[in-house]
Each structure stands twice: as structure tokens, then as C-alpha cells.
């Protein structure tokens, strides 16, 4: 972000903080931890990787975390983890910034004043002593979904001591509807694990399995594995908001939420061969599903009511999906979140809660509006909140305890399909935080070390423990799929009423609001709109015209007396008569980065209407400056992102484009060793942004803030362009093209951008004087300029948390993608020591590593057998702006659609 003047006081504060950080960062965790690859002592400049797992909504993504000299600097996916298979999502990538965020809570507080841990423990124990006589009645514990066996064991232990204690669960992005739907269908709550690699035909109803929720990274990988033209699956999406899944679909229909239910009922009728109301796509989809019995799948989104989920279970059972394309596993939770938090709030207000322990979460901000959680909290004599940040709930509780980050704690976690992972700390808590387990142990009477607690809960020790710790997964812990019999449940689709419907959605970057303090995520262009640093009320162009409003105009969305004023954004592909409000904004206490931006949609959200509700919308007058990183989403006939149908893809001839001789006044560069090159498959790319933020983390790319982003000064080295005027929405990641005849090189007056001996167009930061001619001359506009001293701005990682192998750039210099040169160098050093060439697959760029769908291939073009050379021979291959003769090393593969010929007119 743009620099703010530093006063003497600030300087002293920062100097003090830096000293504290430095000492903290050098301290190894108290218990022994085991590195992932090579067990060796911490050596100068050699990165170590440790396996751990990041949990969201009770389900974990396995990661490998890079540790440089004891400092965690980068998150990679864990290839051994079933939810990751080596890939990551934006949240895992950004979690490294969260770890190092100087705005994280550092102080245990009692009603706002710093206090000691002893004082808290004393007060807590005396309160418990008072409750013990009645078996702990009045003692409550509020958690999110509990994916950790250790925490479950701890809570069970507490429940044995205090039998009258009650537990509550609240997740703002809960799965109440699907779990209740499973209960209706099967008689028990189960989670679904989808196998998109086994599905020939998928129908997603208001569902975004490729873009969010547990296991999405794996779903995306599995889905992409079936998109090669030779064995291509077909995806139908019916949804109100243009999600990533909808963008990838071969057929898509946009419907408002109530109409979605009707569509699902019609699909069911068509599948049963009954006459149904003629709705678009129903016949074609039903026919396709039936034709691929045993290899087809229907996925229902959380916004559908429980009965609809039960219906989908029945449809899937009829299609032979269970065991083939979907399997069932024990649910992450047996608690209905909305009821649980409502009951807690009711009891708090009635004075039945004497002591409340809130482990993580931020219910004062995100609990259903009708339970008025924050107000009820004030009635509790002793409330303790353990959290990473001093947030809205911390302020409403008597006590706030700084929580350890997941990279600072021992724990365990469960993957989307049930496999257990160990969470091991990379570093001792930087700010003296305690893990949730330590907090429970501290307030209970448990003296065991956190690591021993995990070992005990997982029943692991010795070699098995070490192996699990090293691999990041505990072998064969995935539960056997449950064999369930489906019951018939009546489903009455809601009436399609006139008027507006409000749809609540997790934000693609700040999620439910927990990532609001994270500048990387704030500045990540949302896949659907490319908006940054804000949320908006998304509507279709038709609906906007009806309101007489344009993008940026303020509208008022009201449910009865509750109203929210939000800036409107017209989103191509959005359903008419519906307005989508991303959650997670309008935070009051989200640190200097995340507070007071966007609007808070939670006040409209009830326990009973968690995902959509009837509402009224009107123009409110006034406007808000929304910032988007891409002003123009039409291709204007230039086809930068190419598209073909399956038939065209199968009949296309191998492209000779890569080696076509071209005329140039300059002689060709001589190469006698490697020729690094990249290919990006638009047919695999889902536009999730994982590459962008992985690159940001790897290359120490600064954020610039909303105002600067609005001036067109974002610094991302790989951006994801979105085009809305193709046959289907197209996502196109654009890193540097590394041209053979690079227009940038010829015009730099000081030779600060030059061709290296392996074909990479490198930027020499300390030679750059900042004429910016190179950027003007770059047809791909991939160059980024430090208009201010961004790297010293707000929201950046402290230098200890940055990648030590990449220079941070000062103001006035140009920067851009260099194919992760430092990673090539790392591989070269190793290869040189061993007297060999760099092997295929030894260099993986940050974007490539993070990509859930393996859309990015990278390697040595001089080896015709290398993966990238093979990919480039694909008949779908093409060069961006080939007519300019820049001869890029980065090329693309065209997107392919597999439409159902039956549905040609849909």
C-alpha cells in the first residue's frame, strides 16, 4: 500500500516490534518437529519443508510449508494429502501473510486492559468451582466445526467432568442444509465426497464444488482430469450467481433461487420419465444423466433446502452414483449450527450462561442477525474468546486470549474425505498466542504437552508418528464409505414469487470475513468481477436496468426493518430478480487493513434464511467508487482467449505454431543448454486465482491498496483475465510471455531488461532507472511498476517472513514474472553439485505448484520429451498475439466446450 509517513513514535514501536519478531522467529517450537523431505539440521540458505494442514469449516487442506532458517515463508500443497494432491487454494497461500501479520493480537486482555494469563486462569477456575456443584450447568463452549480428534477428546474430557456443560457450534458458512438433507434421506447426517474424475456427466444445481467448500481443490483436480478432449466429461450448471463451476460448465442456466428448486423438481420428474414443466436444459440433462448411469452425478449446493438435498441423494441413488461418483462419510458435525447458536443466545439472554468459552470464530460479527448474539453476550458474567485477531467478538467478551496460528500449533485435522493429518508448528508462537488445545487445557486442568495430546488422541507413537508427521497424512485413516439406503422424501419446490431474492455468498477472497485483515486476499481480483478491496451487490444487467442503476450506484436491500446499503455491480451471467451479497465485509475490528471497508450483509441473514431470502431492493441514491482490475471484459474480436468445441478440438491438426519459422531482422538467440518454457491450458484453468497469490507469496510482491489499484497499479505478476463475450466465460492467466524477440528488451535505454542464456527475459532491478518504455512496448502488459515504495507499505510481511531468495523492489523500478528464476537457480545448484542436468519436473514455478487443475506446464523446451514440449504440440496450442512475431515462450491451449448436441438450442 502507499507509504504513510512514519513518526518518531511509530519508528520506535516498529523497531521494538521488529526486535520482538526477530527473537520470536528464531525460537524453535518446544517439541521436536520433523522435516518433510530430508531430515537435516537447519542449514544456511537451504529451505526445509514441513507437512501440516490448514483447516476451514472443519475440513483440512494438507500443505507443505517452506521454512528458511526456521522462518515459514511459503505454503505449498502436500502431494500426499487427498484434499490437496500438491495444490493449494488462495486461503492456504495467504495464510503465510496471516502468520506474519503485525496486526495479529499479541496481548491477553481483560475488558480491553492487558492482563496476565494467571489472572484469567484464576478467575476461570473460581467460576468453574462455583458451577461444579450443579455438574457444570451454566458452562458453555462455542466452537466451529470440530475436525480435530484432539479437540474432540479434550471436549469429551471436559464433558465428563462437567456433565451438565453444553457445547455449541457455529460456522457462518455452515452446512446445515446438506447435513439435514442427508438426515432426511439416510436417517443420519453424512458428508459427501465427490469423485469428479469418475463422472462423465455432472449436473450442479446452485453448487460450486470447483470453487469453494471442503475438498474443492481436489474436486477441481479431478474435474480437470476429465476435460482432455479424448475423454471429456460434460458439466451442466444451474445457478443464480456465476460461480467458477458455472464458468466451467458446458451448459449453464441462470435462475433465481426459487426457480432453482423448481428446476430440480423438473429434473427429478424427467428422470422418472414423468411429464415435467418445460424448463431449459431439463430434458437434455436428464437424458444425459440416464445415458451415463453409474458415471453421472448431481451435486446440490448449500443454498438449496434440506428436502432438495434429500431429493438429490435419491436421484444419485437412482443413477447409481453412490460408490462410483459420490461416497458418504460421517458428518463433520452432529449439530445444526443455526439452532445451536440460537439456543446459546437465548440462554445467554435468559441468564442461564455463567461461563462461556469461545474457541475461534467471530459470532458477534457473523451469527444470524435474528439471534442478536453480541447483545446477548453482554449478559454472560465470564466470557473468554480465543482468536487470532482482536475482533468484534473479542471486544464483546470479558476476556480475549491471543490464539496461535495454525503454523504455530500442534493439532490434527480431517480431510474432506476423512483422512487424518497432523498439524505441526513451524515456529514458536510469534506473538505468544496459545492454541485452542492449550486454551482448553489451561482452563481445564490438563498438564500434558500439546504434542502429547495429539499423539494420544490419534493413538500414534514411535515410527508411525514420525512417518505421519513427515508425510502430513496418517496412513489409511480415510473412513470406509458408508453404505446407506435412501428414503423417499417429499419435495415441494418453493413457489416462484414475484419480487427480489437476496442471495448470500462467501466472498471469493475474504470468505466469511475471517480473512478481512489479509491484504493479499483483499487485493485479489474476485474471479467473477475482478473487484478488489470491496464487496458489491451483484445483479444482472436486466435487473439493474429495472432499478435504473448502474455499476457503482448505491442500492438498498431490505428485509423488513433490516436494511443494507450496498454499491451495485452488474455481473454478466447473474440470474434476474436476484441480488447476491458477498459476506465477510463491513468489519469493524479487522485491523488496519480490513476494518471499515465494504458493507456487512450479515444483518440481513437469519438462522432460517441462511443463503437466500425474499427482499426488496431500491436505488438508494449516491454512488461508491468500486475498483476493478479489469475494466474491459469483451474480447473485441481479437480472441486472446481461444475457444473450440469438442468436435473442433478432436479434428484439429497438431499445431506447428511452436516451431514455425518467422522472419526477423535480428539473428536467433543461440541456446546451448535449457530453454525454459510454459504452457497454460485454458481448458483446465478455472480462474481460482491460486496462481496469482502463490506468485505474490513466492516473489515478495507488495500490495498497493484500493486507491492505487483503482489507478491501475496492481502488482500481480500473473493476473487472470476474464472475458465474458465468448461462447462461455473464459479465464486466462497472463504471466510474462518471455518472448524470443522481446519488445521490452529493445527499448530499455540502460539494458535493465535482457535476455538470459536460457531464454528468460530477466529484469535487473538495480539497473532499472524507470523510463517505463518496456511496459509501453509490452503487448501483453505484464510488467509492473513501483510507482511508490509499495514494499514498505501497510499490510506487507515483515522482512523475516519474506522469501529470502527474492529481492524486494524499491520504488521507481519495473518488475515482472521471471519464471521463478530463484527456483531454477535452486535446482541448478543441486544439479551442478551432482554433476548432471536439471531433471524434468525438478523446477516447478510457484503458480504451477499452486494450480489445483495443473493448468500450467513448465519445463525445458530443448528436451522434446519434456512435459511442456509435449503439451505445446497439442492441436489446441496457440500463441497470444502471434501476429506480432514476439515468439513467446509462454503459450496457451484453447478452451474446449463439450455441449450436448441434444441441447444445442439451449
Amino acid at each position: 500500500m502507499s507509504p504513510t509517513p512514519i513518526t518518531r513514535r511509530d519508528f520506535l514501536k516498529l523497531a521494538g516490534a521488529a526486535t520482538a519478531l526477530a527473537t520470536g522467529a528464531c525460537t524453535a517450537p518446544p517439541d521436536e518437529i520433523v522435516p518433510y523431505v530430508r531430515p537435516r539440521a537447519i542449514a544456511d540458505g537451504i529451505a526445509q519443508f514441513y507437512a501440516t494442514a490448514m483447516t476451514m469449516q472443519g475440513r483440512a487442506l494438507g500443505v507443505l510449508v517452506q521454512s528458511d532458517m526456521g522462518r515459514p515463508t511459503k505454503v505449498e500443497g502436500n502431494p500426499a494429502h487427498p484434499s490437496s494432491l500438491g495444490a493449494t487454494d488462495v486461503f492456504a497461500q495467504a495464510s503465510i501473510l496471516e502468520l506474519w501479520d503485525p496486526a495479529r493480537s499479541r496481548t491477553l486482555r481483560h475488558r480491553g486492559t492487558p492482563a496476565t494469563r494467571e489472572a484469567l486462569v484464576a478467575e476461570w477456575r473460581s467460576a468453574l468451582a462455583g458451577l461444579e456443584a450443579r455438574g457444570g450447568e451454566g458452562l458453555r463452549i462455542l466452537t466451529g466445526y470440530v475436525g480435530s480428534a484432539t479437540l474432540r477428546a479434550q471436549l469429551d474430557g471436559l464433558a465428563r467432568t462437567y456433565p451438565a456443560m453444553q457445547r455449541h457450534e457455529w460456522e457462518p458458512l455452515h452446512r446445515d442444509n446438506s447435513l439435514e438433507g442427508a438426515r432426511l434421506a439416510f436417517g443420519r447426517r453424512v458428508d459427501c465426497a465427490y469423485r469428479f474424475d469418475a463422472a462423465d456427466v455432472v449436473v450442479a444445481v446452485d453448487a460450486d464444488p470447483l470453487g469453494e467448500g471442503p475438498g474443492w481443490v481436489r474436486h477441481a483436480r479431478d474435474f480437470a482430469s476429465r476435460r482432455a478432449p479424448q475423454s471429456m466429461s460434460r458439466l451442466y450448471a444451474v445457478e443464480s450467481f456465476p460461480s467458477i463451476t458455472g464458468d466451467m460448465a458446458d451448459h449453464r442456466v441462470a435462475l433465481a433461487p426459487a426457480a432453482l428448486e423448481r428446476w430440480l423438481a423438473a429434473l427429478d420428474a424427467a428422470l422418472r420419465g414423468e411429464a415435467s414443466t418445460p424448463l431449459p436444459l431439463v430434458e437434455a440433462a436428464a437424458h444425459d444423466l440416464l445415458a451415463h448411469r453409474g458415471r453421472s452425478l448431481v451435486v446440490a449446493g448449500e443454498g438449496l433446502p434440506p428436502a432438495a438435498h434429500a431429493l438429490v441423494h435419491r436421484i444419485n441413488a437412482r443413477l447409481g452414483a453412490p460408490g462410483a461418483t459420490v461416497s458418504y462419510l460421517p458428518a463433520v458435525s452432529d449439530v445444526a449450527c443455526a439452532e445451536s447458536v440460537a439456543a446459546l443466545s437465548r440462554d445467554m439472554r435468559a441468564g442461564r450462561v455463567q461461563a462461556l468459552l469461545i474457541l475461534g470464530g467471530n459470532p458477534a460479527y457473523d451469527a444470524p442477525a435474528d439471534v442478536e448474539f453480541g447483545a446477548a453476550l453482554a449478559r454472560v458474567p465470564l466470557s473468554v474468546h480465543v482468536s487470532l485477531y482482536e475482533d468484534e467478538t473479542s471486544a464483546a467478551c470479558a476476556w480475549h486470549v491471543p490464539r496461535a496460528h495454525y503454523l504455530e500449533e500442534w493439532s490434527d485435522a480431517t480431510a474432506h474425505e476423512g483422512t487424518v493429518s497432523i498439524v505441526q508448528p513451524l515456529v514458536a508462537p510469534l506473538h505468544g498466542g496459545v492454541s485452542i488445545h492449550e486454551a482448553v487445557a489451561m482452563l481445564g486442568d490438563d498438564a500434558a504437552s500439546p504434542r502429547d495430546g495429539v499423539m494420544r488422541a490419534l493413538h500414534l507413537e514411535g515410527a508411525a508418528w514420525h512417518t505421519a508427521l513427515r508425510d502430513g497424512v496418517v496412513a489409511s485413516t480415510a473412513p470406509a464409505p458408508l453404505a446407506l439406503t435412501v428414503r423417499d422424501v417429499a419435495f415441494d419446490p418453493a413457489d416462484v414469487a414475484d419480487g427480489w431474492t437476496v442471495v448470500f455468498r462467501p466472498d471469493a477472497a475474504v470468505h466469511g470475513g475471517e480473512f478481512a485483515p489479509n491484504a493479499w486476499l483483499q487485493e485479489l481480483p474476485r474471479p467473477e468481477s475482478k473487484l478488489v478491496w470491496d464487496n458489491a451487490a451483484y445483479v444482472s444487467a436486466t435487473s439493474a436496468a429495472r432499478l435504473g442503476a448502474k455499476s457503482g450506484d448505491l442500492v438498498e436491500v431490505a428485509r423488513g426493518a433490516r436494511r443494507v446499503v450496498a454499491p451495485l455491480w452488474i455481473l454478466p451471467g447473474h440470474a434476474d430478480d436476484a441480488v447476491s451479497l458477498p459476506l465477510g465485509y463491513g468489519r469493524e475490528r479487522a485491523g488496519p487493513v480490513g476494518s471499515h471497508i465494504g458493507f456487512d450483509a450479515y444483518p440481513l441473514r437469519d438462522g432460517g434464511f441462511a443463503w437466500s431470502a425474499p427482499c426488496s431492493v431500491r436505488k438508494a441514491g449516491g454512488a461508491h467508487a468500486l475498483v476493478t482490475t479489469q475494466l474491459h471484459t469483451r474480447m473485441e474480436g481479437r480472441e486472446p482467449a481461444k475457444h473450440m468445441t469438442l468436435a473442433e478440438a478432436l479434428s484439429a491438426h497438431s499445431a506447428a505454431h511452436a516451431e514455425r519459422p518467422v522472419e526477423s531482422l535480428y539473428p536467433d538467440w543461440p541456446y546451448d543448454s535449457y530453454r525454459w518454457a510454459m504452457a497454460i491450458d485454458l481448458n483446465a484453468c478455472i480462474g481460482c486465482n491460486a496462481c496469482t497469490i502463490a506468485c505474490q507469496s513466492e516473489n515478495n510482491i507488495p500490495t498497493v491498496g484500493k486507491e492505487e489499484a483503482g489507478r491501475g497499479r496492481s502488482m500481480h505478476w500473473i493476473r487472470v483475465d476474464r472475458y465474458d463475450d465468448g461462447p462461455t466465460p473464459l479465464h486466462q492467466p497472463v504471466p510474462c510471455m518471455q518472448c524470443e524477440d522481446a519488445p521490452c528488451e529493445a527499448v530499455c535505454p540502460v539494458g535493465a531488461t535482457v535476455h538470459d542464456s536460457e531464454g528468460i527475459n530477466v529484469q535487473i532491478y538495480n539497473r532499472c532507472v524507470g523510463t517505463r518504455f518496456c511496459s509501453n512496448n509490452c503487448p501483453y502488459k505484464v510488467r509492473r511498476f513501483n510507482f511508490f515504495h509499495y514494499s514498505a507499505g501497510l499490510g506487507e510481511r515483515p522482512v523475516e517472513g519474506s522469501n529470502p531468495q527474492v529481492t524486494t523492489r524499491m520504488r521507481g523500478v519495473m518488475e515482472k514474472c521471471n519464471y521463478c528464476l530463484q527456483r531454477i537457480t535452486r535446482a541448478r545448484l543441486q544439479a551442478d553439485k551432482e554433476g548432471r542436468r536439471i531433471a524434468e519436473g525438478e523446477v516447478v514455478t510457484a503458480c504451477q505448484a499452486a494450480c489445483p487443475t495443473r493448468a500450467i506446464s513448465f519445463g525445458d523446451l530443448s528436451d522434446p520429451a519434456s512435459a511442456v514440449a509435449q503439451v505445446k504440440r497439442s492441436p489446441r496450442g496457440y500463441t497470444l498475439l502471434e501476429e506480432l512475431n514476439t515468439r513467446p515462450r509462454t503459450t496457451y491451449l484453447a478452451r474446449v466446450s463439450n455441449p450436448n448436441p441434444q441441447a444445442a438450442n439451449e
Partner: protein
Amino acid sequence: MNSQVLRGRWGYASVTDKISDLVLRRPTHWLWALGFGIAGTLTLVLLGGMVWLFAVGVGIWGVNIPVAWGFAIVNFVWWIGIGHAGTFISAFLLLLRQKWRNSINRFAEAMTLFAAGIAGLWPVLHLGRPWFFYWLVPYPDVMDVWPQWRSPLVWDFFAISTYLTVSLLFWYVGLIPDLATLRDRAHGAWRRMVYGFFALGWRGEARHWARFESAYLLLAGLAAPLVISVHSIVSLDFAIGNTPGYHSTIFPPYFVAGALFCGFAMVLVIAIPMRRFLGLEDFITIRHLDNAAKILLATGLLVAYGYAMEVFTAFYSGDKYEIAIALDRMKGFYAPVYWTLLFLNVVVPQVLWWRRARRSVATLFVIGILVNIGMWLERFMIVESSLAHDFLPSAWRPFIPTGWDWAMLAGSVGLFALLFLAFVRVLPALSIFEMRELVEEEKEEAR
């Protein structure tokens, strides 16, 4: 008689008295003081902008990605264009024996120097790290690092520094006899010393005059091609680039014509108030203004041809990017700029076909100002609209100037005015010795 280049009855002595008194005797006029105050204030704004710029970075301007070149480059091209007319008048018209030039060449050359100097400031301010501007110079660096010779910015550096050097020399050499005159007439030892130092011991000997004439002619011969080359090279900053709207072979002549066009417009803007306030109507006559207006009209037509060819070539080429940028200029974000500049640079000068307009001081003054604005807009249009709308639609983004952009542009105009106002106080605004020649020639003609 309105077609004279010299009006009234002037002899050697009275001409010398008149012009040297402007420097040596004339008391400070309140208008001069007011102008100097305003110009000084604007100059301070420029200095303040520079301090803030050096402190925090070029982000204070509206530049962005894709439009990485902003007002700094627009202003640079504009000022260097203004800096063309002076040398053209002095050198070209001297070689072509256009004697009417004698009464306007001195201040036109001063205008050239100041404008080119200010122009030279912009590329340095433009840099992300301006303190390293000397890296564009091929100096003997210990690390053997040289400039990258394929870059037009390096050529630019040489073109401008050569032009500035030769213009300065030409101007100074032309000043020597006048400096001697001032030395001889100045009161006070200090003034005499300063003028004397710069007069280089000129005594007006026949030998001096002979040497002077040949040196002056040689310098004129040297300066004349530079008038053509400097703006041609400047135009290559764009033409070498691949950006649609930049990449055009017509740019060198088109830029030179544009430079003369706006340079002569600036000559009018300066000459008209100057002849009025310094009482120089007898020396800078309607004939001069009429001639300048004719050149303005002629170069304006060349510029109009350039505009027409730019559009024609875009469509004739069939290149979709060139066509898109041509259409975008007409209909896109910058369309108001495009149509305004066409009006100012093409339509407005057509008034000069009328003799009455060419001889109306007020009309010429207004046209001069309008053409200068129009030419600034033209440079703005070329630099910004092309970058804002290049190859990938996803990257399109307009350039929107900030307050600092405008403040520093105004500041540079202030600095120019400040330098000029100072110039008319310390150096003869007209060439005394050449005016004496003119008096003689007029007499001969009369005989």
C-alpha cells in the same frame, strides 16, 4: 505602408539606443513586475512538485499500467516542439537570406533555448529513479556498463543535448556584438565587467566581423539540420515502439511540422505582447506577424495532412489494432480531446487565409494560444490514447491526470515565462547589430 519590415525613421544610432535602452535604462513596469511575480509563483509550484516527486515517487502523477507515460512525456514533446521555431528562424531563414527575420530571431532563439531546456527537464523528472538519469550517458563506468543503443531514448538523449548545445552556441555567438554594445553603454563597473566578460573582447574590427560572419553562417549550417533531426528523433521514441498509434513511419516529418507549427504559434504569443509593452512596433511590424501567420498556416496544413494520413494509413493497413485505435480516438474515452485538437489545429488556422486576420494583432494572439493548446492536446492524444487502448482488451485503462500533473505543467509554463521576463531585462530582445544592418539595407532599397 504596412508591408515594411521596419517602420518609421530609424538610423544606426537611434536603433542602438532604442534596443539597448530596453536593457540598460527602462524602469520596471508594474505589469512586468506582476508577470514576474506570477511566473515566480508558478515556478515555485514546479519546484515544490519536484521536491515531492523526488521524495515519494512518480506515483503522484496519474501514470499507470498500461499508460506508463503521462504528462511528463506530453510536456516534453510539447516544449521541444516550441523550442523549434527559434532555430528555424535564425538558421534556416538566415541561410535563405530572409532579412525580415533579423528583428525576431533573437527572442525566438531565447524562446528556443528556454523551451528546449524545460523540455530536457521532463525526461529526467519522468524517471522512476531520476537520480540515475546519467546512466543513459555513455560514461566510462567501472563496471563497463553502457547504454543500450537500440533504445530510442538513448538517441533522444544525444539529439536533445546536441540541439541544446548548438542552439546555445548559435545564440551566444549571435549575441557577442550586442554584448559589446551593452558593455560600452552600461553604467557601473559591475555591469560592464559582466557584459565585457561575455563580449569576449569584441571591438568591432573588420577582422572580427569577417570571422563572426563565417562562424555565424557555419553555426547556422550546423543548426539547420538539427531543427529537422531533433524532433525526428523525438518522434522515434514513439515510432520505434510497437504500440498501435505509435508505430508509424509518418511520425518524423509529422512531428517536425507540428513542432514548427506550435513554435511559430508561440513566437506570435510572445511577440505580440512584447512589441506592445516594449514599444517595438516599428521593428516587429505587421509584416513580421503576417509572415509568421503564413508559416503557421502552411505548417498547419502539413499537420492536418499528418492527421488525415494517420487515419487513412490505419484503415488502409487493414491492421485491426491500428483501426481500433483510430476509431477509439474518434469515439472512445479521449474523443473530446481528439475533436478539440482537430478543431484547434486544423479548423482555427484556416482563418489565416484572410489577409485581414493575418494583420489583426488580437486575432493572431488568440490563434497562437489556441494552436499551442491544440498542439499540447495532440501530444496528449498520441501519448495517452495509444497506450490506453493497445493489444489486449483486458489491459485497457485510461490515463487520468492528477492535480500534480496539472500543477507541474502550469509550473513549467511559469518557469518559461520567468526566464523570458528575465531575459528581456538583461539581454537585448532584438539583435542590435542585425537591426542596424536592416536599417542600412532599407535605406539602400529606398535609394
